[in-house]
């Protein structure tokens, strides 16, 4: 195949992708979720909260199980449950033998067990288990999109407002506290915001893959960024590019959308890491 023919096939594919109503409906919510998760991703890496995202995303299954059992709206119930779990983890007494990772492990397992029992009792039509576990942005309803828009805008506003304070606490919590910053309250806000962001990501990448979306964008950016703002912008760039490419791959090969996006992010990280290593070698 000549290069010109390859380009023509590519252009044809892109045209088809952008004319697909299913993909067009999913594109804006997916990019919006990528933008929000990429922003919070920077703070997750700075505060080393990767395991918290694993815990909270798995705990969301219990929230969804409760929603299904008691016929409550799915996303708002899951949102309230995730934020509750995240705040509970933030306020655990850390000096009484329960370290943060132990607490996360306990709540993660307990909520997951509760979720599995509740979901197993619901009828098969009520729950799209595959969608919950691995995400399916292609089935997003208008009501869900509006809900995501609302919490996503709220997260972005909180991020812009508190990013520097969170950054300063991650760098040196003692100096931040001695400067007069209310460190405990700010940490509580961070955990709550991470809980909110997790719910958004569950819609795109599912319970199992959410951590990938919450950790990988900033991890890619970490290799190149030199300051909070540059890390934030790079993280958004990586997340949005991976989301677009992932959705295209999902469309082309009929792969699950969430898994395609997370896999693209993983490949981006490997390329980014390799390029960063090469750059450092050249400098030497």
């Amino acid at each position, binding site marked *: 195949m000549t290069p010109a023919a390859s380009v023509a096939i590519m252009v044809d594919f892109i045209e088809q992708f952008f004319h697909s109503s299913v993909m067009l409906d999913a594109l804006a919510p997916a990019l919006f979720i990528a933008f929000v998760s990429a922003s919070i991703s920077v703070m997750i890496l700075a505060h080393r909260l990767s395991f918290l995202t694993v815990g909270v995303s798995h705990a969301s299954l219990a929230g969804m199980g409760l929603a299904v059992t008691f016929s409550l709206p799915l996303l708002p119930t899951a949102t309230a449950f995730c934020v509750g779990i995240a705040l509970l983890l933030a306020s655990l007494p850390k000096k009484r033998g329960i370290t943060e990772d132990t607490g996360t492990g306990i709540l993660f397992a307990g909520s997951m067990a509760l979720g599995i029992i509740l979901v197993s009792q619901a009828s098969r039509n009520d729950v799209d288990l595959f969608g919950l576990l691995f995400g399916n942005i292609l089935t997003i309803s208008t009501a869900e999109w509006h809900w995501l828009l609302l919490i996503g805008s709220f997260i972005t506003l909180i991020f812009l407002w508190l990013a520097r304070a969170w950054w300063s606490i991650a*760098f*040196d*919590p*003692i*100096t931040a506290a*001695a*400067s*007069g910053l209310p460190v405990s309250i700010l940490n509580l806000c961070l955990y709550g915001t991470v809980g909110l962001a997790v719910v958004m990501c569950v819609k795109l990448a599912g319970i199992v893959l959410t951590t990938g979306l919450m950790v990988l964008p900033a991890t890619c950016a970490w290799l190149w960024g030199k*300051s909070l703002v540059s890390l934030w912008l790079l993280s958004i760039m990586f997340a949005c590019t991976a989301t677009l490419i992932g959705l295209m791959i999902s469309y082309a090969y009929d792969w699950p959308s969430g898994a395609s996006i997370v896999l693209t992010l993983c490949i981006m990280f490997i390329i980014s890491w390799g390029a960063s290593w090469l750059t450092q070698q050249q400098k030497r």
Partner: protein
Amino acid sequence: MASVDAAQYGAFTTTVNSPNLALVAPIISLSHISFGAKKDPILQDISLALSAGHFMGIIGPNGAGKSTILSIIAGLIQPRQGHIDLFGECLTRFSRRKLLKNMGYLHQLHNSELHMPVKVRDVVAMGLTEYASPLWQPIHSATHHQVAIEEALQRVDMLDLISRDFRHLSGGQRQRVRLARALVRKPKLLLLDEPSAALDSKQQQKLYTLLRQLCDTEQMTIIMVEHDIAAITGHVDSVACLNRSIHYHAMKGEQIPEDIWHQMYGENMHVIAHDTSCIGCNHG
């Protein structure tokens, strides 16, 4: 076996140069501060008042409560008993944030800073009271902030490295940047916990000279915890000998009695006098 250069400290014959405390309101006043369990207190009945421009060194053995007293003054921990006045106002949970704006603090624990990509400029900016403002209010574009950051770095001889990644600096350079962060807000009260750690002897002397200058020209009050009394002796106005309680508060030129050293460090020490027979001593 510990040895303390007490004779060198006592060699000064000048009178106390701090202003009369009865006439000038103290910058800091501690009255009957106790901390820790009643049966086994970490600090017991500490009372102290320092006026503007006073430079006090705190010495004492490991576990004497030196860092604890700084943490209490910095409002990081609450004393079990006692009262603290800063700048003529009582330090409470409500007044804390306002009062800490006039205080700089350099502590000893620096565990989390090295995993984040932060430029030297940004580390110093974290010391500004306005740093935690929202992301839509740029810090570095404000000229007065820029000037303050450069001035603080100039003071510690680190201006040339303003754009460097903090992680790529040596231990001594990092310590100087942390000191610049404590100085950037031009505090009235500066708390330093072993600031000369990681500094070579030349930088150590430069640091003490700078601190002396800040007390004399800008009327900054400094409380500094140090182990090496011989190194600070020519610079401070007074030395507090701390081991749970203040055993002795010696003003410049005053000899610390030998029994005080034994009370603080136990019997496993010798107080040595320096004379011309000492090898390696500079008797000027």
